């Protein structure tokens, strides 16, 4: 089969699925939707696998052009896909994890009246995400970038009858729009500098630029603003916790595994530009590290099972950005991959719990679910261990790779990152213990209805659990007799930037082991601390308004960031709108417009009395008029 043909088939299937389901979601029976929705993604996955096994065939010509999309003046944008190890890795994540989540949704959304609509949106999302990762130039990537934002909006506001959910959707959309503006400006600057937007041409020319070129710094900073919006970093992260309003599979697919990692992918894709801009790299590093710590500290005191996971996602994305900032592109992509596995698993597990409890999301009302939901418990446990970074599960290896690179860079950064990772361990095990251990704290009615999810939901959980457990094997470091296979696989993509990064003195094996040991010990310490606080002793579960120490109060209220944004952005804008409405609109524009109307009415009211109804008078006026015209003719 023609390879180019195969590549273009990959995104076509979900698009077809969207078109069919989108047009017929009222009439297509549920059984057909259940096959069509996940089926299209499965086909994409099969073709992605095929592409993966043939990726070496693309090494010579990674850019596959379908047609010229825009051709005007010196601007030429082909509709082209880029097939290289990086995009193939993303392809497998998007279609693979995406397929599992689609299958899970068949069970999770079974009772929902918007079943067909849900799968239509999900398929559309997969289509745009594939466009994003496959695009061979920035505009194609941007189509996907905007498209996934749209689908995110549609799916957050999926239950559109709830006003709060609609607001959450709008918030996500607007926050993303701020970032997208940065991305767009970045693209303009790229075109202005390199007079091309294709990855291969831009990177080819960029290689010749000097280190720290101001234009490159500007470009990378602007693109990074886009990544900040999409990947929910400080200061544009507040949409992601609110985005949990959407159905849980949406949170798993869009707000954990794929869309939010688009920023990381974009920077990894533009690695050469970023390597040439050390200033930007520092900005990314500071942002990422701050986000990782900040979000982790908020997650410790959240009581909504999905909110904890949302902040955890923000925090883990922060780690990926930190990894990128020190040039550990493979490490960041590795963490992206394992994170996609275990965070999707965590969300799906949370969905299974919520499903069993009939919509309950507050972990204070859970507990003791271990025996009632055994499959959910075991898979959730695996994911928790993986994210906490305990060997030999995947999270340990991916996070450790980033941490080691950080240590090579600066030991202070390493310490801060380790603090973040021990917070991760604490809040994740707090979540696990409160949900599954001790006795059930919910109502009797919920207790009565407790049930393990159907097999269609647990099977994806088990597969993801296997991936989360063994995902670390993808890039096992040499120290464990691993071959760093992912690094080898991705090496061609990062080859050019690897030359530019000043090589750090490779640390000795003993240092590496020591660092791993320290991390592991503090993480295990946190696990036991959580165990003592939430399992051994009666957990301290205070209602929402309870009085707490002020620092805790600060964290419970998410550092009042939402309130701060409300005060410094929303309120002034509302105030300004009010002023414009009450002063400019009502006092000036309205008065002018109404004045013209009033004048016409007044004139008409006055002049109408000329219409006396006397025919003789009319004729007199008429003749007077004729005479006047005659005189004017003579005079002029």
């Amino acid at each position, binding site marked *: 089969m023609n390879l180019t043909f195969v590549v273009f088939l990959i995104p076509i299937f979900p698009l077809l699925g969207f078109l069919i389901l989108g047009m017929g979601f009222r009439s297509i029976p549920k059984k057909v939707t259940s096959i069509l929705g996940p089926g299209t993604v499965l086909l994409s996955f099969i073709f992605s696998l095929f592409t993966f096994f043939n990726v070496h065939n693309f090494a010579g010509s990674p850019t596959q052009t379908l047609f010229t999309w825009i051709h005007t003046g010196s601007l030429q944008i082909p509709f082209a896909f880029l097939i290289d190890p990086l995009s193939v890795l993303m392809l497998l994540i998007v279609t693979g994890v995406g397929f599992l989540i689609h299958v899970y949704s068949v069970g999770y959304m079974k009772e929902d009246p918007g079943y067909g609509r849900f799968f239509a949106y999900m398929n559309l999302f997969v289509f745009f995400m594939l466009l994003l990762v496959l695009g061979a130039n920035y505009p194609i990537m941007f189509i996907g970038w905007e498209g996934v934002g749209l689908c995110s909006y549609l799916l957050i506001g999926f239950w559109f009858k709830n006003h709060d959910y609609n607001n959450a959707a709008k918030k996500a959309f607007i926050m993303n729009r701020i970032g997208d503006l940065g991305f767009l400006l970045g693209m303009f600057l790229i075109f202005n500098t390199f007079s091309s937007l294709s990855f291969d041409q831009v990177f080819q020319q960029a290689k010749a630029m000097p280190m720290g070129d101001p234009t490159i710094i500007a470009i990378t900073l602007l693109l990074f603003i886009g990544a900040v919006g999409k990947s929910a970093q400080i200061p544009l992260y507040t949409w992601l916790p609110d985005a949990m309003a959407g159905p849980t599979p949406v949170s798993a697919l869009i707000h954990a595994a794929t869309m939010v990692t688009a920023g990381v992918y974009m920077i990894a894709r533009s690695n050469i530009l970023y390597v040439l801009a050390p200033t930007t790299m520092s900005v990314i590093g500071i942002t990422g590290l701050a986000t990782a710590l900040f979000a982790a500290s908020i997650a410790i005191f959240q009581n909504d099972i999905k909110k904890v996971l949302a902040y955890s996602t923000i925090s883990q994305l922060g780690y990926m950005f930190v990894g990128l900032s020190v040039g550990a592109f493979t490490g960041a992509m590795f963490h992206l991959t394992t994170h996609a596995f275990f965070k999707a698993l965590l969300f799906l597990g949370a969905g299974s719990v919520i499903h069993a409890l009939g919509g309950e999301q507050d972990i204070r009302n859970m507990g003791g679910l271990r025996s009632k939901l055994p499959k959910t418990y075991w898979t959730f446990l695996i994911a928790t261990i993986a994210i906490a970074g305990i060997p030999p599960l995947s999270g340990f290896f991916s996070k450790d790779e980033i941490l080691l690179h950080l240590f090579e860079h600066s030991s202070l950064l390493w310490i801060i990152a380790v603090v973040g990772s021990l917070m991760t361990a604490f809040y994740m095990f707090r979540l696990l213990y409160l949900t599954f251990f001790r006795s059930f704290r919910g109502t009797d009615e919920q207790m009565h209805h407790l049930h393990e999810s159907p097999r269609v939901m647990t099977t994806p959980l088990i597969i993801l659990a296997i991936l989360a457990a063994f995902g670390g094997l993808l890039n096992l470091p040499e120290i464990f007799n691993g071959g760093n296979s992912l690094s080898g696989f991705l090496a061609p993509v990062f080859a050019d930037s690897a030359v530019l990064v000043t090589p750090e003195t490779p640390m000795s094996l003993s240092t590496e082991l020591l660092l791993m040991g320290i991390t592991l010990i503090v993480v295990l310490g946190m696990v036991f601390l959580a165990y003592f606080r939430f399992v051994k002793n009666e957990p301290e579960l205070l209602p929402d308004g309870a009085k707490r120490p002020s620092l805790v109060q600060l964290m419970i209220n998410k550092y009042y960031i939402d309130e701060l944004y409300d005060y410094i952005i929303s309120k002034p804008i509302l105030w300004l709108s009010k002023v414009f409405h009450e002063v400019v609109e009502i006092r000036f524009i309205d008065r002018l417009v109404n004045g013209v109307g009033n004048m016409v009415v007044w004139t008409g009211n006055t002049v*109408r*009395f000329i*219409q*006396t*109804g*006397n*025919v*003789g008078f009319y*004729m*007199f006026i008429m*003749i007077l008029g004729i005479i006047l015209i005659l005189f004017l003719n003579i005079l002029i």
Partner: protein
Amino acid sequence: MDIPTNIPIQYYLVFCSVLFSIGVIGVLIKRNALVILMSIELMINSINLLLAAFSAYNNDPAGQIFVFFIMVVAAAEVAIGLAIVVLIYRTTHSIDINVLNKLKW
């Protein structure tokens, strides 16, 4: 055709102007709809006479052709005008135009 050049053109002009003015004054001061219609006819005919006179003096028959057209139009107009007057009479039992003052303001 024998051109009546023994009568100077000024005579025609003065005569037609007087005739026209009588028509105008008739329209303005009369209250009887029939008389007003007749006054209008008077104005039209003064114009016709003037056209014929100029046509004769300039040896251009186009003016006289034009007079025929005006006559046709005037006949049609009078037919409609009289029909309206008849209808007015049937509804108001009067042909005084000052009775027709309901359509105002």
